[in-house]
């Protein structure tokens, strides 16, 4: 148990002393997860909105499928993406394996179901009368959707934070697709994995503390921004 205290001390040390490697890894974690959530959100929020606002045959089934994929095992996704982007796979020519882009792809796929499903959930939570109010106020279809999305903004941001959390704390796909290459694709989670393997428990915990701190800061910032608007 004293490891936890030691880890706390070391974490603070690493941050305060601006340890170059830790900073690099942390920034990379942040950048990759942020890119993942942005890309995924650009796609999933509109798609979630589309699914919510339209009725079509198999809508219920689609939503069920999306929810099933909430629990996509990360290693499975990692493996499948690996097969695609390996140089001997169909997308091999893009030279994506063992690059940060590969990790982003894996994470985007992982968080897409959560983002889409929770966007649908967020929109479902908006009272039906909001749409009528918007439309009868003279909103076009697109403007009405915007109004509803805006009404649901707290829940949608909640979904984004969840997605970001899932992305930044993900190990399996990051390892398999990034290769944990020092200075290039090593992120906090894969570094923790490595240090644990190496038996350096304290450093692993310290990195873990840093990881949680980053997630917390991001969440707080997003909430503050939300309150403003």
């Amino acid at each position, binding site marked *: 148990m004293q490891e936890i205290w030691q880890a706390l001390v070391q974490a603070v040390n690493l941050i305060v002393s601006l340890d170059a490697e830790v900073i690099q890894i942390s920034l990379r974690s942040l950048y990759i997860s942020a890119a993942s959530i942005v890309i995924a959100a650009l*796609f999933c929020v509109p798609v979630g909105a589309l699914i919510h606002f339209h009725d079509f045959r198999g809508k219920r089934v689609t939503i069920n499928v999306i929810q099933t994929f909430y629990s996509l095992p990360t290693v499975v996704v990692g493996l499948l993406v690996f097969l695609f982007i*390996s140089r*001997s796979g169909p997308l*091999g020519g893009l030279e994506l394996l063992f*690059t940060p882009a590969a990790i982003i792809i894996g994470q*985007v796929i992982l968080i897409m179901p959560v983002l889409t499903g929770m966007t649908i959930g967020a929109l479902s939570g908006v009272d039906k009368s909001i749409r009528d109010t918007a439309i009868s106020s003279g909103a076009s279809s697109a403007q009405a959707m915007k109004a509803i999305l805006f009404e649901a903004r707290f829940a949608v941001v909640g979904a984004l934070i969840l997605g970001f959390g899932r992305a930044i704390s993900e190990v399996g796909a990051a390892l398999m697709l990034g*290769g944990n*290459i*020092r200075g290039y694709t090593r992120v906090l989670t894969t570094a923790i994995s490595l240090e644990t393997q190496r038996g350096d428990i304290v450093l692993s915990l310290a990195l873990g503390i840093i990881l949680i701190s980053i997630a917390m800061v991001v969440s707080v910032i997003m909430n503050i921004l939300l309150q403003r608007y």
Partner: protein
Amino acid sequence: MKTLKIKGIHRVFIPVLMACLLLGTILAGCAPAATPPAATGQPAADNKSAQATAFPVIPGTPRFKIATTTSLYDTGLWNYLEPMFEKKANVKLDIVYAGTGAALEYGRRGDVDAVVVHDPEAEAKFIAEGYGTNKRSFAFNHFLIAGPASDPAGIKGLPPEQAFKKLYEAGKADPTKVKFISRGDNSGTHSKEKLIWQAAGLNYGDVQKSGPWYVEAGKGMGPCLLMASEQGAYILADISTFLAFKGKVNVVPLIEQGDLFLNVYDVMAINPEKVKTAKMLPTATTFTNWLMSDEVQDIIATYGVAEYGRPLFNPLKGGGCTEPGCPKLEDYTVPVK
């Protein structure tokens, strides 16, 4: 109910989004194309494949990828060598850390351009199948069998094959007292272990099924050592990783002598003729030759002395390896063309 109608704005929206998705992915961390350096001895036919590398959106230093075994990695040797090579060859050296089995698989798929492993049998097969080429050896060390200081199976000092036989019998008889942690991951160490079982006259399949005393961990060398330490089990480990973990584990070396313990580290380039997507043969050649160079061999001779009192690896240069099974002279002195 209405059928799905993609209304006007969405018709545009969705394709634009997908384009953004794709574009963002590619731009976000696109690896610069791994084009070979300009001066190349490649036949002209390769030019097409060189240009075929797509999306050199961010032109930068080419990236040379190798897969290396865990035992080399865990000792930190690569951390040391990596910046040196990057400077020398003006490439980015990406080191992917995997067991021998996985490393060779990456090689077969062309996801790496060279592999550094220590499994002669697997390597021979790799080369025979045409995947690997220009194999050279550059370092060696030994395995050892470690275990609890109390040595409940009483194997201290025995030859490795006999020790294994004894472990097998003792473990089957009383798995709570005698346990063995196997790498279980097709690594070089695992292959060596299997060889020793064979030498002990046992069928490996039987060993695997013989009882809970035999634990297939499926992990790297370091984690397996930690596991052995936790469980008071016996384990086959390479000396360098063992030393690097000495302070963290409480298993002790019990057997350090044995011909079968020789552990040679080899480097192989991926053969572009067999693996169409491997393009960095010239860099691999530079890499291989560099490993055999005086510069690196000297480093290998002293790496770890300060911390552990003895080097973790032994250079091959200068004929340091004299045991049976040591690589032939040409395997570690003749540069690759």
